[in-house]
C-alpha cells in the first residue's frame, strides 16, 4: 500500500521539529570466555574481544542513520558484569581493567561502555568486593566507563551491607572528582531488580541470560508525545492515554526497524526495543512538560503521580503492540538534570526530593541524576538508597538511584555537568541521621509474595 502524503509529512515533522531520535544502539557483548587466572592475559582478551565485535558498530550506525533520516544519538556497548571476571584480581588490577574498557570505547568511538558492575543483591563474594573497592577510582580515572551495582531484588531482599558500602563508594567517587562537580557519580547506578537487557546508561550491562552478542535499541521521544498532546487540548484522560499510546506505537516501530537493520548489517541477533521517554536538555524534549501538558501547572504539584502513572502505562501499551521484543526498562525516565521541566519544578519549589521518591513508584526507573549537597554523609546516602530499594522490592519493579553529592555546593546552588548530563539544582537531604539503621547492616528479608495489597 502506498504511503500517504500526510504520513510522510508526519514522520518528517517528528524527526526535524520534535526531536524524534534513536537514543541509543547498544551492543551487548558476553565476556565470560575472557576469564583467565593470569590478569595480563584476561585484560588483553577483554580488549581484543570488545574491539573485534564492535569494530563496525559506529560506522554501520552512521550509515543507517543517513539512509533512514533518523538520527542515532549514542552508540554504546554493554558487557558482562565485570565482577564476574575478577575472582582473583586485586583492586589495582580492577582499576586497570576499567582503563582498558575506557581505551576500547575511545578507540571504537562509542560514547559509553556499561557493565563495570556487580550483582550483590544477596551476598558479596570476592570478585564483587574487589569491584566495589575499585569503583570510586575506576569511575574517576576513566571517561566512558559506567558502573552499576544491584543491591536488592524482590526475591532476595535488600543487602544492607552493600547499601552501606554504596553510600561510601558514592561519597568517595564524588570526592575524587571534586574538580568536576563529582561527575564520577553520574556514571554509577544502584539498582533494585535490574534488567539484563537495558540499553540505557549508566545502568546497562550484558546479563547472564543474554547471548554471545546482541543489538539492543533504545528509542526516545518526549518531544513527539508532547506535540501530539498539544493537538488535543480538550481530550479527556482516556483520550490523552490514547494519543500517547498511538504516538508511542509509531516511535517504537521506527526504532524496531532501525534496530533490526543495524543488527542485520552487523550480522548479530536483534535483542530488544526499549521504548523509554528519556528527556534531554533540548527545547521541549521534557517528560515534565508532558505531565504539565496533561494538566499540571508545574510538575510536582498534586496530581503529578496520577499523570505520570497514566503516561507510563500508555507508553508501555503502545510499545507492546508495536514490537514483539519490548524490553529493557520501557516507560519513562525522570532524571532531574536532563529535563528542563524538572529543573524548573525544583527551582519553583513545586518539586521536592520526597515527591520525586513517590514518583518512582510509578515511573520506570527511579531517582535519577539528582544533585545533593557535597557534605551529605555516606549513611544518609545509604538511607536514601535503602528507601528507593524498598520501593522497588515491595512493588516488584526496577528502581535505581543515581545521586551526585557535589563537593562544595549546598542546597539551592546550581551545578553544570555539561553535555548530555545537563545541569541540576542541588537538593538538601534530611538533616537527621540514618547512621544506626545503616550500621546494623545484614539483609532485609524478601517480602511475602501473597497477601498483596
Amino acid at each position: 500500500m502506498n504511503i500517504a502524503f500526510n504520513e510522510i509529512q508526519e514522520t518528517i515533522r517528528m524527526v526535524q521539529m520534535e526531536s524524534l531520535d534513536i537514543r541509543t544502539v547498544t551492543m551487548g557483548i558476553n565476556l565470560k570466555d575472557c576469564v583467565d587466572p593470569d590478569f595480563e592475559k584476561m585484560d588483553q582478551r577483554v580488549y581484543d574481544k570488545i574491539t573485534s565485535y564492535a569494530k563496525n558498530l559506529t560506522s554501520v550506525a552512521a550509515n543507517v542513520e543517513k539512509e533512514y533520516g533518523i538520527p542515532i544519538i549514542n552508540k554504546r556497548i554493554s558487557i558482562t558484569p565485570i565482577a564476574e571476571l575478577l575472582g582473583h584480581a586485586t583492586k589495582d588490577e580492577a582499576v586497570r581493567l576499567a582503563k582498558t574498557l575506557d581505551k576500547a570505547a575511545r578507540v571504537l568511538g562509542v560514547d559509553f561502555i556499561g557493565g563495570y558492575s556487580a550483582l550483590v543483591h544477596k551476598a558479596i563474594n570476592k570478585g564483587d568486593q574487589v569491584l566495589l573497592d575499585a569503583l570510586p577510582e575506576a569511575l574517576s580515572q576513566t571517561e566512558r566507563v559506567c558502573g552499576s551495582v544491584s543491591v536488592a531484588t524482590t526475591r532476595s531482599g535488600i543487602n544492607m551491607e552493600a547499601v552501606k558500602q554504596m553510600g561510601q563508594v558514592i561519597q568517595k567517587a564524588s570526592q575524587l572528582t571534586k574538580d568536576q562537580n563529582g561527575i564520577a557519580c553520574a556514571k554509577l547506578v544502584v539498582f533494585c531488580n535490574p534488567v539484563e537487557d537495558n540499553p540505557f546508561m549508566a545502568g546497562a550491562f550484558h546479563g547472564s541470560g543474554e547471548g554471545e552478542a546482541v543489538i539492543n535499541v533504545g528509542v526516545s521521544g518526549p518531544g513527539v508525545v508532547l506535540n501530539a498532546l498539544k493537538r488535543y487540548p480538550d481530550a479527556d484522560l482516556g483520550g490523552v492515554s490514547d494519543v500517547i499510546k498511538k504516538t508511542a506505537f509509531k516511535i517504537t516501530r521506527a526504532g524496531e526497524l532501525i534496530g533490526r537493520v543495524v543488527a542485520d548489517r552487523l550480522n548479530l541477533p536483534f535483542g530488544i526495543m526499549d521504548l523509554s521517554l528519556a528527556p534531554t536538555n533540548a527545547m521541549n524534549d521534557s517528560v515534565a512538560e508532558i505531565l504539565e501538558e496533561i494538566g499540571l501547572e508545574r510538575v510536582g504539584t498534586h496530581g503529578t503521580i496520577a499523570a505520570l502513572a497514566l503516561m507510563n502505562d500508555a507508553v508501555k501499551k503502545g510499545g507492546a503492540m508495536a514490537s514483539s521484543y519490548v524490553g529493557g526498562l520501557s516507560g519513562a525516565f525522570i532524571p532531574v538534570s536532563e529535563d528542563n521541566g524538572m529543573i524548573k519544578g525544583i527551582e519553583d519549589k513545586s518539586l521536592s526530593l520526597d515527591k520525586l521518591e513517590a514518583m518512582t513508584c510509578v515511573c520506570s526507573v527511579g531517582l535519577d541524576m539528582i544533585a545533593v549537597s557535597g557534605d551529605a554523609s555516606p549513611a544518609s546516602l545509604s538511607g536514601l538508597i535503602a528507601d528507593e530499594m524498598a520501593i522497588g522490592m515491595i512493588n516488584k519493579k526496577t528502581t535505581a538511584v543515581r545521586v551526585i553529592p557535589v563537593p562544595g555546593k549546598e542546597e539551592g546552588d546550581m551545578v553544570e555537568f555539561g553535555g548530555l548530563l545537563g545541569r541540576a539544582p542541588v537538593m538538601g537531604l534530611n538533616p537527621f541521621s540514618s547512621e544506626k539503621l545503616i550500621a546494623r547492616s545484614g539483609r532485609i528479608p524478601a517480602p511475602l509474595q501473597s497477601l498483596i495489597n
Partner: protein
Amino acid sequence: MEQKRAVVSVVGKDQVGIIAKVTAILADNHMNVLDISQTILQDFFTMMMLVDVSRAENLDKLQSEFDQVSLELGLKINIQLEDIFQSMHRI
C-alpha cells in the same frame, strides 16, 4: 532486480526551478521517479517524490548533492528509505 524505494521530500519557499534542479540530480544518478506530489502549504512549497534507488550505491553522495541545492535555494531536502514510513504507519 528488486525495487528499493526512497522518499525525497522538499520543503521551502516557492520559487522557479525547484523541481528542475531536484529531478536533474536524480536523473544524473540514474534514478527513476515513481510518484510525485506537490502542493503549496501556507506559502511553503512542499513536494514528496517516491524514487527507485535500487541502482544507487550511495545515498550519502546523493544527500550531499541535495545539500548544495538546499543551500542555493534555501530549501530543506531530505532523502529517506521508504521502509521507515511503511513501518511507522502501516501494520
